[in-house]
Structure formats: C-alpha cells, structure tokens
C-alpha cells in the first residue's frame, strides 16, 4: 500500500529529467499491479519483500506481545495453555523464517547489492522473482496452519519426538519452513553468482563495499547450510506419515541426531541473520564519522571467518541433550573461537568513530544502540557457550534474553538502522528526524526493560516456554511486560513516522548523508538500470576526502533541512 502511495507521489514529479524505476516497469509490457508482481527488476522485488516482510514482522510482534501479556501475572491471564504454546511457536517460526532471515538480505540486499557492485541487476532476475513467490507461498502455508487441525505447539525447533507425536498440524508448518528455506537458498545462489560475475569492470575484491561483502559471506552459509534443514524437515514429515523410525527410539532411532541435523543448519542460520546486520552497521558508522572504516580487510576477513567458524559450533545448543562429554568439551571450546571475529567487528566500528567528526542522525543512533545491545548479546552468549554455566541456565529465560539481544537488539536494530539509512535512497524522501529519535529511544528503553529482567529470571531458574511460573518470578515478568509495551510502542512510532514521510516527507537529494558507496552516486530513487552513466571504479569505497571538503563549503544543507521537518 505504501508502494502505491509512492507512485502517485512520484507522478507529481514528472518534470524530473531521469525517470525512476517506479515509472519504468521492467518488463515494460506490464503496468499497474502486474508491473510489480511480474517484475524482474531487483529494486521492485526488494520492495515487494519489504511490504511482505513488514506485515509478518508486525504480526509476530503482536504475537510476542500477547505472550508477554499472558506472563505478566501468574496463572491464566488472557489465554489457555494450548493457545500459549501455539502462539510462542508461531512467534518463533514467523520471526525467524519470515522476518529475521529474509529481512536484510531480501530487502536491502536485493535493492542495493547490484547497485553497490555497479551493475544493473542480479545475475538471475527471474530466479529472484521466484524466490519472492516461494517466500509468499511459505508465508501462506504458515498462515494456513493456523486454521487447520490446530496450530503447531512444538516451538520453532520442531524437536522430535514431540513434533512427530503431537496431534497439531506440524506437517504444514514444516512444509512452510522447507519452502522458505528454498527461497533463502536461491537468494544466496543469486547473490554469489552476481558478486562473481557482475561486478563492474575494474572493481577488485577489496573494493567491494562491506555490506555486499557481508551478504556474500551470508550467501555461502545460506547455500550450504539450508539444504541440511530441508532434509531434516523432510524427515520429520516422513516420520509423521510413514513412521520411518529414523528418530524414533522405540525403533532404534536417535532423537539427538535430529538435534544435530537441526542445529547444523540453525546455528549457521544465526549467522545468516546477524552477518547482513553487521554489514549494515559497517556502512553506516564510517558515513557519519566522516572517516574511513577502521580495518576494512579485518572486517571482510571476519565476515568470512564467522561464516566458516559459525558452521562448526552447532552442538553448543545441545549441552544438556545427552550427547557425549567429549562433544560438550569440543563444541564449548569451538564456540569461544567464534567470539573473536565478532569482537573484531565491534572494535573496528568503535575505532572508526574515534576522532571522527560524528554527525548524529537516526541511522547512526540506531547503529549505536545496535553496538551496545549486540555486545551484551554476544557477551552473554559466552556464558551460554561455556559448558559449566550453560548447564545452569540451559532452557531458561536467560537463553531467551540472550538470543533476543542478538536477534532483535542485533539484527532487528540493524534492520531499523538500514530502514532509516536507505529510506531516502529507496523512496527519494526524508522522514522526520525528531520522531525517529523518539522512536529509537522508546524502542531501546523498552527493549532494556523487557529483556534485562529475563536475564535475572533465567539465573533465578525460570524455564522458557512455560505457561505459568512460581510467585517469586512475578516482579520480573511484570516489568518485562511493561517493557514489551514500551518496545512495541517505539516500533509503531518508528513505522508510522516512516509511513507519514510518504505524505509530507521532503524530497531527498541523491546523497543526503554524504555516503561514498555507489548507491549514493545515483538519483534517489534510482532509475531502472541504476546507473545513468557507466559507473567508474573508485578504488577504495570509503574515502571521505571529497565529502569532508564539500561539507565544509555548504555545511550539510540537506541534513539540516531534514531535521527541521
């Protein structure tokens, strides 16, 4: 709907010399809604992802709010236990498979990766459209499972034996996850081929912007890890239909092997979720520090290192599952290794800001919140990676708090930062800064109030996924609930602010922030083929010499206008 509003907005600007991609459908024979649904333009596909991902995000956010409302008081508050089980499962499935995994690569990756590489589209544009349809089909099946035979109540991990024996409609949800996996896999395939084959002539590997680098690293993980999930989910379906017994202890099967297979994908998937977010932050921090990124090669290297090392540590989700002690020891040790490349990135971001000329804007504000929240998430991850402490807090609210700090405080905030950073590029308009700051502060405050109590509850011993709890956990859960409402209010303010910008946002110039990567050298919104003239390789992508020089001349015209709105 925002898209249609955008088109009418753009029509008023018909005098613009270069037509944006909104006015030039590709293929050109389609018009109206067909120009979107049958498009092979990477930018339109990115926006279709944006529209659909946002819908899922809001749905899952509301589901999460329902969970916390239920937990605000002991006993039954607003729902029954079965409903509660279904709701936390759907919250997890939707958030993971329909929001966190596709959000940054599918929206911003699709929109920006070809532009940052100086080319006009991804390598397989039709496959790209197919990925979107698979995404929609997966989402549709997930919704359908709500209405047939009861929604699944297994949690998003679909652990056997419960997922095989439960009466609820696990099969449909598992199929949905299978199809969503294919969508993600094909996007990864497309990105790898694009990076290898479609970089503009003359662009060397060490000249690729960091966001694209992070997508490239992510794409390899998507490509190689996702099929393992596909086969695992397929086996759950076979188990349910034919009783093949591969995970059934009564037939000799080993349920722990299901956990192995599941986490062989799902732990690398954590890096599918966070790596693109790290890429976003690596773009934003240097722009608003007016300073070249500190340790470009180290960040590139750490992205690839995370992709590799992240694939070796899956069993740290299983310390209490009954696997061998040797495995607990080895995987605990390996887990600590993954912390190193993540820390390299955090240090690089902070060092970039050191002695930079910081320009505070909403995207930078979200990025700073990201660094803070992600650091907490990462450090509490070490508590969980160490086998000794893990066994103390395994499957408690500590785990819930930890991965929400990484997934929401990390990827979620990076997503918000990306929205605010590239919004003027994608739509050619600037939003209101004041409301954006209010939203960011509300979201972060709510976030802290929401998840910090969960750390404490977890250490006190409150298990996750439980419908009810002991009286001593009352206070923490109550405050977490309050935090949830503040958090959701913040997100709604943020989204409304962005939507309002369609109505009365000011037109944005091609480079409102003073960015140096290629997307800032082309009009906002970009024309169909992205580049009006063939882009020229600039060598190193983060050279701010020209930006600093021109800024001292006209003192940030556009930004000052933006903040006055």
């Amino acid at each position: 709907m925002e898209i249609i509003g955008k088109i009418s907005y753009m029509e008023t600007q018909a005098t613009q010399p270069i037509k944006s991609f909104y006015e030039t459908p590709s293929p050109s024979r389609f018009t109206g809604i067909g120009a979107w649904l049958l498009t092979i333009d990477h930018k339109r596909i990115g926006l279709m992802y944006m529209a659909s991902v946002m819908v899922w995000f809001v749905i899952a956010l509301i589901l999460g709010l329902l969970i916390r409302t239920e937990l605000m008081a002991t006993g039954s508050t607003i729902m029954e236990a079965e409903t509660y089980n279904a709701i936390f499962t759907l919250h997890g499935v939707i958030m993971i498979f329909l929001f966190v995994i596709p959000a940054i690569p599918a929206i911003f990756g699709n929109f920006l990766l070809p532009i940052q590489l100086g080319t006009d589209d991804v390598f397989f544009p039709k496959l790209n459209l197919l990925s979107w349809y698979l995404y929609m089909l997966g989402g549709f099946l997930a919704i359908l499972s709500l209405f047939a035979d009861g929604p699944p109540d297994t949690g998003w991990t679909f652990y056997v034996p419960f997922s095989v024996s439960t009466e609820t409609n696990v099969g449909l949800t598992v199929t949905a996850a299978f199809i969503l996996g294919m969508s993600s896999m094909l996007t990864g395939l497309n990105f790898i081929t694009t990076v290898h084959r479609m970089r503009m002539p003359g662009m060397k590997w060490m000249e690729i912007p960091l966001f694209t680098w992070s997508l490239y690293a992510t794409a390899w993980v998507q490509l190689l890890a996702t099929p393992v999930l596909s086969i695992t989910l397929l086996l759950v379906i076979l188990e349910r239909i034919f009783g093949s017994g591969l995970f059934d202890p009564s037939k000799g099967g080993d349920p722990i092997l299901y956990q192995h297979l599941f986490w062989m994908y799902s732990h690398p998937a954590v890096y599918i979720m966070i790596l693109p977010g790290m890429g976003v932050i690596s773009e934003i921090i240097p722009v608003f520090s007016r300073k070249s990124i500190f340790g470009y090669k180290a960040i590139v290297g750490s992205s690839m290192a995370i992709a590799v090392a992240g694939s070796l540590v899956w069993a740290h989700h299983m310390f209490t599952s009954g696997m061998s002690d040797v495995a607990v020891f080895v995987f605990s040790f390996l887990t600590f290794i993954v912390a190193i490349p993540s820390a390299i990135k955090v240090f690089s971001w902070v060092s970039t800001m050191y002695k930079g000329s910081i320009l505070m804007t909403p995207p930078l504000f979200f990025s700073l919140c990201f660094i803070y929240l992600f650091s907490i998430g990462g450090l509490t991850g070490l508590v969980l990676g160490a086998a000794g402490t893990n066994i103390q807090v395994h499957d408690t609210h500590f785990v819930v708090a930890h991965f929400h700090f990484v997934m929401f405080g990390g990827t979620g905030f990076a997503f918000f930062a990306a929205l605010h950073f590239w919004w003027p590029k994608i739509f050619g308009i600037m939003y209101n800064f004041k409301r954006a700051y209010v939203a960011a502060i509300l979201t972060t405050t709510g976030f802290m109030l929401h998840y910090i109590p969960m750390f404490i509850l977890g250490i006190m011993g409150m298990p996750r996924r439980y419908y009810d709890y002991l009286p001593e956990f009352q206070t923490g859960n109550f405050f977490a609930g309050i935090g949830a409402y503040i958090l959701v209010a913040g997100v709604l303010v943020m989204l409304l602010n962005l939507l309002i910008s369609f109505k009365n946002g000011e037109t944005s110039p091609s480079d409102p922030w003073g960015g140096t990567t290629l997307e800032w050298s082309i009009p906002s919104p970009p024309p169909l083929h992205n580049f009006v003239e063939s882009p020229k390789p600039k060598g190193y992508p983060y050279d701010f010499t020209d930006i600093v020089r021109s800024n001292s001349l006209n003192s940030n015209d556009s930004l000052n206008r933006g903040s006055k709105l």
Partner: protein
Amino acid sequence: MIVNQSDSNYTDDKTCDAVGSHTDNENKHYDIVGSRTGMWLFLYTEIMLFGGLFVLYAAYYRMYTADFTGAGKELDILMGSINTVMLLVSSFAVAASITAIQKKSRKVALAFLGFALFLGAMFLVNKYFEWGHKIDLGIFPNSPLMEDSSHGRVLFFSLYYTITALHAIHIIIGMTLLAVTMAFIMTDKVTEHKYVLLENAGLYWHLVDLIWIFIFPLFYLIY
C-alpha cells in the same frame, strides 16, 4: 552502459536466466560462465541435501555396524550393479552429447541424449521391481516384519527407502531436464553456439550419477 531515456529501451534486456530468452539490445553479453556457476552452486545444495542423509547413515552405521552389514546382504547386488552400470553409461552419453553438439552434429547429440533418457527410464523400472520385491517380502517401514527386526535393520531399510526415493525423484527431474534440452535442440534453441542449457542439464544428470556412486557401495556392498 548508457541508459537511453526513451521507454522503448526498457524492455526485457535484463533477462539472463539459464533458460535464456536473451535479447541483446545493448552491449550486454550473455554470460555462459555465470550461468554455469549458478548451476554448480545449485548442485552444492543438492550435495548438502543428500549430505544430511549421509550424516544419519554415518551415525547409524557406527551404532549398528553388525545389523547394517547383515541387512546389506539382503539387497540384490546384481540389480544394484546393473543400475550402476546404466547410470555410468548414461552419464557418458550425456557427456558425449556435449562433444557432439560442439562438433555441430545435433543428430548425434540427440541420439546420445535419447539413449541417456532410455537408460534413466530403465533405471527407474529396475528400481520399481527392486522396491516391489522388497515390499512383497514385507520389508518396508512400519511393516509387521520390521517391528520384530533388530533396530539396526529397521534403520538400514528406512534409510535405504528414504535415500533411494529421494534419488529416484532426482532421476525424474534430471530426465525432465534432458527431455526439455532435447526439445530445445530440435527447435534450434540449443546450438553449437550456445549450449549452456545442455551443459547445465548434463551437470544435473552427472550429479544424480555421483550420488548413486556413493549409495551403491554404502547400501549394496557393505559386507
């Protein structure tokens, strides 16, 4: 490239998928290497898909070695060997069809592909009888016979059915791809100048063969 502002230029020139309805109205090249790269990447996902099952095989082989070797003897080595040979020969035929098209002899290429298709079909027929025979003997998941069997034997046959079924599905997909390619050769859409579709279909077919090369000894030959 310079973008002309007239609408007529915004046509389908962005298309460069493997199937390739390419219209070259700018100086854009149809990137054969990229198209093949995409196919290889796709093959990796297939390898990992079967890989998940081999993970299970490895673990259960370790846990139930004696049961596995015992159950392996129940499979028909002759049938398995015939199927192996048929897939290898069909793989050769597909590789030879690429040589044929490179040498501009499309009829020879079509003959090779037809032969490969025939062998693929025979493989499935063979598989059908093999499965049918086993099911007649009462060997299938959840059968009364299997309920009394040792754990390792149950798992061996569950894995056998799962892997061979998944493999048979891939044979069918591969045959479809080969058939489509043949149609494209007949209609001159695949020629000696541009045969990347044949190469990609061939790659897929070889992968199906590759996986069988591992299935065969792991199931039929463990002793």
